[in-house]
């Protein structure tokens, strides 16, 4: 019996392959995600292992606020006093100890622009002693020995046309400085550090550049023979200052790996979610394809029943078929994932997220999860078709044109669909709006609710098909003539089938719509905010729009003639009232270039902060029950503890504000942060925005290639870039599920063509041309995909409304233009899906088709 089922499957290779594609893509996404993130994790782990391979102990500063950057290299981490090195060297257990600077500096290309915008520019110091611990090795030239020397990484040199002997600009804390390249280096163990540029200076130069004269970021220690690293660490610990920490080299590498893997785990979950969506859509496609195949095999299944096959055997043969398809598809998907991992990486790189790479890592876990998930989803999707197959009565073997009895659930479609939708909306409301539930439960409620919503709409769809096809088929009838009219009839002929095909597309389109509507709302809110807040003429931000940049750039423009006000806003993380919070600090004059509403205090409040004042945002004040007069304790990463008093409560617009939850004066900030930086700098000038002013400011900023001067309109556009990138990334990832549903349409059409072979032959015999046949199939396809859009876009809008309500989203905007694009995309999907089936239908031999049974 198993053999019979397998032979049957072999006899329907094309159909089986089409069914499998739906699962292949989803599984490839899952396996690709694992391969990508595992590869990156392995690369990081290798980077850190290399970085600390010769160190038995590593001493670093310790961030006082314990943010997630624990490896002691995060920005804002305190540095170590130089005297510590001598005391460590004096320990009897120590054979060698070297101090080093690890910071960030950017390299400037020949075009005067910062080379690496998305990835950090890393800076190191070089000493001969320290070389024992360094993961870097020379590829050409020499190590830096003079104050004006720098080594850069070989990859950056090649890519940007730099050679030993040439000069290169470097931005550390102040304006750009020029150095002479004396050598190129590479980092051991990895081909790429994720696009990061490297700059290596002599130790004194590095200390000067980063304002760490006489101090170190890291001290690497090697033990004498026979001293265990743990013993060394214990010996060092008593020497440490309060803001220092020591770990064994191995522990340091592990900690550093752990710090990065948190971020990678988020990326992994994020991508897996899209794989899950694709598989969910795939399960619709599989269920539908199997149902159609079973309907077409009614006669065959009935014959088996007359020959003594039990219902169980029939059900098992269908499940076996699903098992085989699911297994084959999962295996193919698993390996396709290897290729997809590269594509995903390329995708991230194109969106500015460049991560280090090593050879692809293919873990056992990847194989197991990919196969189990792929097979399980296929089998689950096959359950209903398999149950239906058992309802084929033996008598169907002798009845011409016998139909599968309607599903037992079919008559509950309308009420069941409505009930499911009601339940799903309730779940979504609970998940999104109800208070007092844990995040896990809320996410579960939202997830199950969304799945149920799609399921409910799919159940309702067969009822909606006839009227919707009547409307959506109108253009086909008008444009396609007789073929279009027939296509409309065909689309409505088997409502359940058309509905389920369209439902798969509905899911992808609903999610795309959700994202598009939310983004439109966010964008309009952001624009409203900028219009309100931005009362300056110009702004300066980092070239990448989001990194804080050196305060020196603000100082540089202060001297430009005609400048009325220059006010920067510092930003840094701090622990406020026990949790890590974004702390900002406006410079004097901020009140004249930034405008927000005040719940308590007034426009002058930022100017009156003084040494002990702070103002907070209204949301933060509400959450923390703060009033004017409340005191707040702020701990900074360097260990400073500030006791401030709330003197005002700002009520910034919802779309964002340059002030974070808590703001103090820039003077107070600068005293507490060793390396203060501005997130934004705003400028007010005589004569406002004018070509002359722009020119003067640009000239003043020429020493700061990492700073970007912008007008209000440019600022808005630049700040929206991040949102647009994210939006495009989401669209690309969601398009995977749309591709799956496209294959669903292909399946249905191919199967329909099989089924209507005789009818197509008849139509050809009475004078329908090949072209008309193709057109008929194409219009049927487009009507189906439009149906998907007609279901999906409203569902997406409803989801956006719910999500918007959850995040208190006043600006609900329907992006009509974007939605029109989605409808056009749906039509495109329909046209593409029809290519293969239409060609098959057009090629049918009239005579054979008429004899086809």
């Amino acid at each position, binding site marked *: *019996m198993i*053999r*019979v089922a397998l*032979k*049957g499957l*072999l*006899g329907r290779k094309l159909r089986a392959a089409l069914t499998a594609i739906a699962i292949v893509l989803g599984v490839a996404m899952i396996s690709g995600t694992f391969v990508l993130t595992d590869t990156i994790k392995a690369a990081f782990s290798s980077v850190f292992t290399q970085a600390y391979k010769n160190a038995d102990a590593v001493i670093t500063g310790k961030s006082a606020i314990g943010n997630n950057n624990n490896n002691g290299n995060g920005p804002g981490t305190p540095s170590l006093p130089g005297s510590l090195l001598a005391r460590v060297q004096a320990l009897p257990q120590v054979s060698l100890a070297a101090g080093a600077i690890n910071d960030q500096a950017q390299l400037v290309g020949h075009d005067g622009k910062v080379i690496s915008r998305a990835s950090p520019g890393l800076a190191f110091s070089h000493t001969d002693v320290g070389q024992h611990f360094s993961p870097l090795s020379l590829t050409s030239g020499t190590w830096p020995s003079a104050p004006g020397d720098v080594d850069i990484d070989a990859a950056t040199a090649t890519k940007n046309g730099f050679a030993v002997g040439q000069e290169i600009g470097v931005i550390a804390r102040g304006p750009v400085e020029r150095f002479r390249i004396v050598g190129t280096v590479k980092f051991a163990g990895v081909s790429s550090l994720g696009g990061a540029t490297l700059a290596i200076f002599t130790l004194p130069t590095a200390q000067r550049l980063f304002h760490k004269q006489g101090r170190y970021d890291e001290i690497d220690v090697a033990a004498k023979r026979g001293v265990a690293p743990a013993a060394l660490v214990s010996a060092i610990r008593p020497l440490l200052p309060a803001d220092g920490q020591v770990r064994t080299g191995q522990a340091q590498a592990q900690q550093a790996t752990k710090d990065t893997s948190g971020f990678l785990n988020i990326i992994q979950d994020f991508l897996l979610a899209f794989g899950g969506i694709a598989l969910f859509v795939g399960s619709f496609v599989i269920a539908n394809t199997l149902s159609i195949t079973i309907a077409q095999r009614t*006669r*065959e299944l009935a*014959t*088996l*029943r*007359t*020959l*003594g*096959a*039990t*219902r169980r*055997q029939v059900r098992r043969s269908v499940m076996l078929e699903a098992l085989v398809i699911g297994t084959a598809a999962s295996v193919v998907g698993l390996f396709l994932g290897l290729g997809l991992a590269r594509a995903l990486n390329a995708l991230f790189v194109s969106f500015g997220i460049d991560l280090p790479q090593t050879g692809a890592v293919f873990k056992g876990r990847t194989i197991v999860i990919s196969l189990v998930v792929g097979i399980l989803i296929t089998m689950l999707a096959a359950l209903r078709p398999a149950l239906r197959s058992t309802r084929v*009565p*033996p*008598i169907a*073997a*002798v009845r011409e044109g016998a139909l599968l009895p309607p599903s037992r659930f079919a008559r509950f479609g309308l009420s069941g669909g409505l009930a499911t939708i009601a339940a799903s909306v309730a779940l979504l409301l609970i998940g999104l709006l109800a208070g007092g539930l844990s995040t896990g439960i809320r996410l579960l409620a939202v997830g199950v609710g969304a799945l149920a919503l799609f399921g409910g709409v799919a159940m309702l769809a067969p009822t909606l098909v006839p009227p919707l096809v009547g409307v959506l088929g109108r253009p086909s009838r008008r444009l396609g003539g007789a073929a279009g009219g027939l296509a409309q009839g065909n689309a409505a002929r088997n409502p359940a089938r058309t509905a389920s095909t369209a439902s798969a597309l509905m899911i992808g389109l609903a999610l795309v719509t959700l994202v598009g509507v939310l983004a439109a709302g966010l964008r309009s809110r952001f624009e409203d905010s900028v219009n309100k807040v931005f009362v300056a003429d110009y702004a300066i931000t980092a070239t990448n729009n989001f990194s804080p940049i050196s305060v020196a750039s603000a100082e540089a423009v202060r001297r430009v003639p005609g400048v009325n006000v220059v006010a920067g806003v510092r930003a840094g993380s701090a622990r406020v009232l026990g949790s890590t919070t974004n702390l900002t600090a406006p410079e004097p004059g901020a009140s004249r270039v930034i405008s927000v509403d005040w719940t308590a205090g007034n426009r002058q409040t930022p100017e009156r902060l003084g040494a002990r004042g702070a103002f907070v945002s209204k949301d933060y004040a509400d959450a923390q029950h703060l009033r004017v007069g409340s005191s707040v304790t702020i701990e900074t990463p360097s260990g400073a503890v500030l006791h401030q008093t709330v003197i005002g409560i700002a009520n910034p617009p919802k779309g964002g504000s340059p002030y974070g939850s808590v703001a103090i004066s820039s003077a107070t900030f600068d005293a507490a942060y060793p390396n203060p930086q501005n997130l934004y700098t705003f400028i007010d000038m005589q004569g406002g925005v004018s070509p002359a002013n722009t020119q003067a400011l640009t000239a003043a900023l020429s020493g700061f290639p990492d700073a970007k001067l912008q007008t209000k309109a440019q600022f808005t556009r630049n700040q929206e870039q991040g949102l647009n990138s994210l939006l495009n990334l989401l669209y690309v990832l969601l398009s995977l599920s749309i591709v799956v549903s496209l294959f669903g349409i292909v399946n249905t059409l191919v199967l329909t063509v099989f089924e209507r072979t005789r009818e197509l032959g008849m139509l050809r015999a009475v004078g329908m041309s090949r072209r008309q046949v193709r057109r008929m199939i194409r219009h049927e396809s487009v009507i189906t995909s439009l149906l998907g859009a007609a279901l999906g876009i409203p569902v997406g809008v409803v989801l956006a409304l719910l999500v918007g309500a959850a995040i208190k989203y006043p600006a609900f905007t329907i992006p009509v233009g974007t939605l029109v694009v989605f409808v056009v995309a749906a039509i495109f999907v329909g046209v593409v899906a029809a290519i293969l089936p239409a060609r098959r239908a057009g090629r049918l031999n009239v005579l054979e088709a008429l004899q086809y*049974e």
Partner: protein
Amino acid sequence: MVARELTRRYGEGPTAVEALRGVSLEVTPGELVAIMGPSGSGKSTLMHSLAGLDRPTTGTVDIAGTEITSLSDAKLTLLRRKHIGFVFQFFNLLPMLTAEENVLLPETIAGTRPDRAWLDDLLTRTGIADRRSHRPSELSGGQQQRVAIARALVTRPTIVLADEPTGNLDSKTGGEILDLMRASADDFGQTIVMVTHEARAASIADRILFLADGLIVKQLTEATSAEVLDVMATLQS
């Protein structure tokens, strides 16, 4: 096999059709019974009821001592495996299986080990031994029906039911199939009930039952073709 007072009504109310209106018949082992009658007289309905493919509205069918009209689907399936072979007008072969695999399908489904000698004998007698590894699409209509007959015989069922096995074949091929039916009854002692329109059936059947309007109206034994044609003519008028 014994059938008693079979009636079968299709539909409800004024549009209901009485396809069978009280048919009783008894078939003795080894007998070849032909059923004839005008179109719509209820022949197929009778065959389906006898084979347990369809439930009669009233009446009983006993096969090998079991009353089948009240059996559950599962029990009926098992009974069909052992006791009933069915030959269809449209062959109903599985296209992806070879001739031999099609013949063995009932054994495969039942999970029983085929008797090789018996299979070879059967294939030889049905004349498809040299076609055993061909697929149905590579066989002529007559050959396909031979495969179907071999399939019905392979489990040595208590009774073989055939509904117009020659209905889709030309008269020469049809004649050969009729001869094969006769030979099966003679050589294997196979009990067969067969619906046919061919007057030639007269010469091979032990007994001919004539059905009209859902009732057995006449029975002939050892009849000649002329007699059969005569009866058919009166029934049709």
